[in-house]
């Protein structure tokens, strides 16, 4: 049984992390494109139309992969985690169904209308379509996070008939976890889109290609990036405060605290963690910082894993209750560092732009290119911290991950699907990179190339002469 659990977890982690490369970029780019098109409609300046069309190439490629990798997400709960699905379907399935009804229909219908409707709709109506897509992507995030928040911090349920049944939808939707995770994720997503546009624009500015076009793109996206960076920081702080009282074990693991901390508590920058002997040595600490992070004041102590585990044993019986400490600890740090760096890049970028020095600051533009990758790293490690830090639970305090898998699915079957999905995902990932590079190199000026061999069936009756 251990084998199946491990394989199912690897599959869930890999498919979800892969899916979440595309999702935040889609959410972010949808917003940015909607803003650009709004500027076009309001200012009636063709350059904004050109910007909308140029950036939408990346958005659409990315969106397509996001959609298809999302289908697996919805199927794999039932496929690999049938016991989990039976246990939570009532309360976890509901937000997923609502997500489909409210968000998926909206975004997929209006993205179709938007792509194909450039010459068919009045300008303002066409603009409304991309805004509806953007709203759809954000609503989608809300409902899936409502489902995930239940796993982190179960609310609005009653245990009966051997499962968690919904008995209070208000409690489900006012889950504290949801309201710290949703803005944090959304700001992270906006930052992902923004720093993509920032980085690509920086590349063009270094190359001195379409300078005016990319200066404008850079300005819009830097502002969004900076605001998102601030949003990430503030909501990250509220995430920490939430963790402290709702999921203290995750917080203790994220700090590699075995014993209770001192008062005030210091935040550890680096440390050597020895899980076997339950000790953390060689800490490099920032004093007061953890107290501030968790309580918004410079005092207060944080409970350690030893005491917390004892509490869990008293409550749930003998067993292992520690999450993977090192993974949680380091994921937290990687996330924080990437978030902080983005904030720094955004602030410095705006400063240079304000001083009208950004085009000359090639060293800084180079940094911005590297900055494209930071949000992706931050997003991924944020989720790794969040999901690994919840272990061994799949639904915190209610169901263990190992009890959630499908009893009728063999390790061989999971391995088969794992290999199939990883292979196709690897191919998709490579293609996406190739296409992105291609369209970045092509730039906003060139029109899409026409096909080399096309015949016109409407003049010749189908058989063919080649036309260029």
């Amino acid at each position, binding site marked *: 049984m251990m084998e199946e659990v491990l394989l199912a977890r690897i599959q869930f982690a890999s498919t979800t992390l892969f899916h979440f490369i595309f999702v935040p970029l889609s959410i972010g780019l949808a917003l940015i494109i909607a803003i650009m098109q709004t500027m076009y409609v309001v200012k009636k300046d063709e350059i904004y139309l050109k910007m909308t069309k140029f950036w939408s190439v990346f958005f659409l490629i990315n969106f397509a992969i996001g959609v298809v990798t999302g289908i697996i997400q919805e199927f794999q709960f*039932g496929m690999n985690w049938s016991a989990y699905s039976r246990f939570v379907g009532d309360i976890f399935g509901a937000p997923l169904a609502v997500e489909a009804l409210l968000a998926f229909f909206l975004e997929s219908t209006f993205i179709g209308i938007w792509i194909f409707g450039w010459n068919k709709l009045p300008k303002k109506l066409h603009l409304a379509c991309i805004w509806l897509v953007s709203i759809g992507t954000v609503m989608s995030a809300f409902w899936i996070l409502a489902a995930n928040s239940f796993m982190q911090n179960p609310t609005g349920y009653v245990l009966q008939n051997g499962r968690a049944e919904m008995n209070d939808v208000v409690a489900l939707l006012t889950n504290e976890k949801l309201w710290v995770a949703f803005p944090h994720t959304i700001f992270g997503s906006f930052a992902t889109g923004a720093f993509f546009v920032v980085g690509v624009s920086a590349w063009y500015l270094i190359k001195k290609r379409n300078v005016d076009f990319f200066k404008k793109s850079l300005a819009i996206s830097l502002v969004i990036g900076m605001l998102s960076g601030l949003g990430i920081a503030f909501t990250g702080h509220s995430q920490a405060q939430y963790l402290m009282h709702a999921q203290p074990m995750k917080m203790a693991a994220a700090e590699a605290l075995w014993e209770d901390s001192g008062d005030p508590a210091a935040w550890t920058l680096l440390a050597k963690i020895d899980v076997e002997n339950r000790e953390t040595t060689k800490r490099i600490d920032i004093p007061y910082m953890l107290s501030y992070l968790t309580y918004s004041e410079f005092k207060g102590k944080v409970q350690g894993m030893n005491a917390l585990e004892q509490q869990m044993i008293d409550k749930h019986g003998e067993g292992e209750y520690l999450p993977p400490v090192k993974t949680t600890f380091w994921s937290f740090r990687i996330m924080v560092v990437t978030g902080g760096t983005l904030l720094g890049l955004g602030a410095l970028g705006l400063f240079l732009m304000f001083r009208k020095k950004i085009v000359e600051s090639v060293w800084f533009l180079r940094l911005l290119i590297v900055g494209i990758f930071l949000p992706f790293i931050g997003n991924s490690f944020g989720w790794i911290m969040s999901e690994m830090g919840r272990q061994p639970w799949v639904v915190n305090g209610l169901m263990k991950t190992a009890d959630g898998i499908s009893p009728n699915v063999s390790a061989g079957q999971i391995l088969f699907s794992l290999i199939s999905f990883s292979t196709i995902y690897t191919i998709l990932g490579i293609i996406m990179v190739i296409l992105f590079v291609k369209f970045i190199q092509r730039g906003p000026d060139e029109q899409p190339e026409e096909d080399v061999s096309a015949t016109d069936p409407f003049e010749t009756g*189908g058989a063919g002469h080649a036309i260029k």
Partner: protein
Amino acid sequence: MPLSDIWFVLIAVLFIGFIFLEGFDFGVGMSTKFLARNDLEKRVVMNTIGPVWDANEVWLITAGGAMFAAFPHWYATAFSGFYLPFVVLLLAFIIRGVAFEFRNKVDSKAWVKTWDWAVFIGSILPPFLFGVFFTSLIRGLPIDGDMNMYAGFTDFVNVYTVIGGVTFVLLSYLHGLLFIGLKTVGDLRERANTVARKVYALTGLFLVLFMIFTYLDTDAITDHGAILIPLYSLAIVLYGLLFFFLKMKREGLSFTMTGLVLIIIMASFFIALFPNVMISSTDPAFNMSIADAASGDYSLKIMTFVAFTMVPIVLAYTIWSYYVFRKRLTGDKEHLEY
């Protein structure tokens, strides 16, 4: 009517919407191989569904989500039980979904050819698998007392399920051809209608075979004959009318006929299942009833509220989207997005 029954009907409606809409998407995808003769024709064919295929697929996603939410046991048993067929189904959906977007992005024959195959495979496999899925649901599957399904190869693949799969493929193909007939002009339109007349007989044969084997291989007719026999008869009559509509070149009516036949076939599966969601071939005592598989009443109430508010809105803008793109595609390259 208990809420769980309402949700059983709603899920049936979602699958019916899915097969009616995505049915022609599948058919259009198959037509890229069988009907289109050159690259421009392929593009025109794909562009007929360009603005809508993605939203059509959401009917399936919503049906899956609704199963999860309203019938967790149904979702869990079916999705884990159909593990390998679903892996194949997902792979098919993945390659088809990206193919439309990728196909014209690189100027290379090998590249275009690869994604043409992806569109084709991704359009022919899913209707087959859905045919297999629904026929095996009403035929019965080895489900034990703990609602776990341990199906072997012959539970999925046997004469009846293969007939079901082929029937769905052919009906979708015909439905797609008639959709192309409605959305294009000139030679392509003519040819779509000609090919439709050619596959008419074979599809009809499979439709009848499907009904015969439903009688022989399942308890559907025995248990629900009072509804199913008139319904199947209606499908035969409609399919017969299609013959004349095809001859008279009444494109709209022809398309409506294949749509109605698909709707009837999909509805018949849910009628055959009622009042169960899954039928156990191991022991009728292990049949999973609608009531057994359903979520709690509270949850169903909330979702009923959401569904009855949202579905009309979704339908309204879906219809609007078809209205926006009501014109036939002329094959003018300027207006082809794919």
